[in-house]
């Protein structure tokens, strides 16, 4: 390593500041202004104490869930700005440099992919799981509330590293996949790739703990009578996602840690020389990467299942099939990773077997689509915004699935791999599949969390903008891919591509309107929250337990633990008139106390990451020591619970 590494500041020096391009500089300014603005606002409102005790140190799964979603929202702003900048660049850059220098464009697609997957989609999903699953299974909390807070804060620490890279230093240019040897020191010295590695590593630890937490929660904390085959679909998909998490994330940890070892300690896992083998990185990365896309999409499938049953006012069709299909998808997702590198040069047997394994996933996925279709069949469909997103999803997702199956056929993949055809495929899965799902879930459960409904008109507008915007932004990419346009292009010389790229840019602008509509929806609804108030706790005529309690739910969720006798437990009780939960218990309930361990470990995680990125070793070890001290300290502390009395007007969200 030729860099100067000082003891105190590592390789951090004044040249880390973003004065190298006006785009980067303004990005940094906006980030800083956003952070400062927030601090000032809280101070001005005098809300520090409320924020600290009510949220930051809270271990209530509902508050943690909301914090996850807020984090996702903050990150999505960044992710979307990146996306629209890329679209603008490509719309302009025919035979010219556009407005972005290559190095900046590279940082943008890398940060867009990283943010969207790790810091937008993952937190959004975890937030929904957090808020809803304990309510759906009739539990007072998750199995390990403090661990849950730690998970959140580690995710936030990763996101913080990601954001700070905009202000201090640069971000990776190696894409969200960080393929070596390009991502090695030989080709990309500097801190960019290190930022990428440490931000996803630290949040990955948090994610793994979330996975463990939810498996135990779902398997151990269900209300009496809630057999596995009576669990709501969202809970089922949450369970499968959690299982995928704990078994897939080690592969991400291993591949990125080895990359970090190559970069910082000069090892030779993936280098060109000295016996490195970069192919193993791709292998390990995708052992995680493929299950990851199902980690994201399975909960979305769960949301669609809830939404489609509720708004068709009908039982979910083929529930057992849906459960089996979900588990089959989860297991198969571990058997297909090679389809991301068919063009590496493996033999025909290897490629064909992985190709066929990949296509087999279309079977259970198809079953799901059909089951949703037959749930609508013979129903009474109410076109509330969540339902619109669901129908939009069903129509668009099958198209993306079809392009996925095409990519899974190795000879076709040879000519479409690394083209925008692939970009179109995965946005076609992720936007209608993952994002529409989460948005549907957000609009569906919002009244539960806040006690008032979201404005319907703006919700529908948002849907239409998203739908049309998505079609315009990504259908052209299929065509461009077939014309041979590679992904990650900063400039190009083919005039035939430009019209389609301009269409794609317009599509991204429409998506922007979709996001603006979302903001408007929130704004309008907050202003009219009295008119939109949900007094029943059950605004949609819901079927599952979360609708049986008031909106917003009390801290302890259920006054007394409900007894479940059928699949759609709440719906059943509405018909039979049998009350789910008897009178509030006499005994006081024990609720976990707030804990500062979460924020402390989050801060420690940030220090570890920042120290490792900049070679500020003392900071890294201080962070590590702080984390260990916090855990040990906490284990000496027994008084972790407080009493509450249901029925008394304790404060709730």
């Amino acid at each position, binding site marked *: 390593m030729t860099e100067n590494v000082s003891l105190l500041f590592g390789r951090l020096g004044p040249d880390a500041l973003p004065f190298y391009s006006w785009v980067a500089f303004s990005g940094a300014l906006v980030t800083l202004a956003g952070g400062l603005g927030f601090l000032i606002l809280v101070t001005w409102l005098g809300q520090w104490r409320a924020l600290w005790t009510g949220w930051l140190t809270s271990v209530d799964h509902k508050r943690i869930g909301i914090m996850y979603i807020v984090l996702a929202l903050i990150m999505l702003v960044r992710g979307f700005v990146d996306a629209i900048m890329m679209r603008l660049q490509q719309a302009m850059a025919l035979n010219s440099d556009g407005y972005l220098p290559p190095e900046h464009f590279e940082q943008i697609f890398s940060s867009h992919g990283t943010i969207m997957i790790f810091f937008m989609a993952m937190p959004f999903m975890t937030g929904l799981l957090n808020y809803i699953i304990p309510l759906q299974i009739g539990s007072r909390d998750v199995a390990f509330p403090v661990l849950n807070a730690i998970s959140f804060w580690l995710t936030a620490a990763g996101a913080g590293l990601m954001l700070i890279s905009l202000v201090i230093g640069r971000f990776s240019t190696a894409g969200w996949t960080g393929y070596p040897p390009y991502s090695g020191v030989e080709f990309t010295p500097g801190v960019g790739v290190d930022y990428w590695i440490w931000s996803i590593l630290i949040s990955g630890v948090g994610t793994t703990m979330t996975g463990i937490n939810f498996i135990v929660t779902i398997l151990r904390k269900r209300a009496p009578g809630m057999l596995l085959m009576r669990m709501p679909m969202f809970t089922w998909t949450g369970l499968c996602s959690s299982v995928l998490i704990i078994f897939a994330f080690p*592969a991400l940890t291993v591949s990125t840690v080895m990359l970090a070892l190559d970069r910082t300690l000069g090892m030779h896992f993936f280098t060109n020389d000295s016996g490195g083998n970069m*192919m193993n990185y791709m292998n390990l990365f995708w*052992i995680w990467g493929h299950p990851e896309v199902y980690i994201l999409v399975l909960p979305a499938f769960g949301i669609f299942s809830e939404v489609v049953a509720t708004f068709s006012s009908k039982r979910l069709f083929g529930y057992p099939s849906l459960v089996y299909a979900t588990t089959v998808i989860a297991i198969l997702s571990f058997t297909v990773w090679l389809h991301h590198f068919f063009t590496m040069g*493996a033999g025909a047997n290897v490629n064909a077997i992985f190709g066929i394994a990949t296509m087999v996933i279309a079977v259970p996925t198809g079953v799901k689509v059909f089951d949703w279709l037959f749930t609508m069949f013979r129903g009474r469909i109410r076109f509330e915004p969540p339902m619109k997103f669901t129908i939009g999803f069903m129509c668009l997702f099958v198209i993306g699935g079809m392009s996925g199956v095409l990519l899974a056929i190795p000879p076709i993949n040879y000519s479409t791999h690394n083209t925008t055809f692939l970009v179109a495929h995965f946005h076609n899965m992720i936007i209608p599949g993952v994002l529409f799902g989460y948005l549907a879930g957000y609009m569906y459960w919002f009244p539960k969390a806040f006690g008032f409904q979201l404005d319907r008109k703006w919700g529908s507008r948002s849907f239409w903008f998203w739908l049309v915007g998505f079609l315009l932004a990504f259908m052209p990419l299929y065509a461009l891919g077939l014309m041979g346009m590679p992904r990650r292009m900063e400039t190009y010389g083919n005039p035939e591509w430009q019209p389609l790229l301009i269409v794609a840019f317009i599509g991204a602008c429409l998506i922007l309107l979709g996001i603006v509509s979302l903001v408007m929806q929130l704004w309008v609804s907050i202003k009219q929250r009295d008119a939109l108030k949900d007094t029943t706790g059950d605004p949609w005529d819901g079927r599952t337990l979360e609708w049986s309690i008031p909106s917003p739910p009390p801290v302890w969720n259920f006054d007394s633990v409900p007894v479940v006798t059928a699949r759609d437990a709440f719906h059943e009780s509405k018909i039979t008139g049998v009350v789910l939960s008897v009178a509030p218990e006499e005994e006081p309930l024990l609720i976990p106390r707030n804990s500062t361990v979460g924020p402390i470990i989050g801060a420690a995680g940030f220090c570890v990451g920042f120290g490792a990125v900049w070679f500020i070793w003392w900071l890294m070890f201080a962070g590590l020591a702080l984390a260990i001290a916090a855990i040990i300290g906490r284990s000496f502390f027994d008084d972790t619970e407080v009493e509450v009395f249901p029925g008394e007007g304790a404060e709730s969200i």
Partner: protein
Amino acid sequence: MREMRTILTGFALAVILTVLPFVAVIGQWLPREGTLWLIAITAVVQITVHLYFFLGVEITGKHRERLSSLLFACVLIFIMVGGTLWVMGNLYWRMM
């Protein structure tokens, strides 16, 4: 919980299963292939011994979930590691 007897039996078995491969390697009294097989077999048996006697993995009883999650993990490990060796071996063979 675990009886003293269980602990001691487990330990005795573990000692035997450790000493065996070491002695075989030091003594070299088997052909190379044979020793490798012996190492592999004693390792697998010893892992099972540890799981059963020390880690409370049992077929029935209150820790049944341990066995099922372990088996699931084994299947996935087999897929991941077996797949890795297969794929990387194939690539190596095609590129060298």
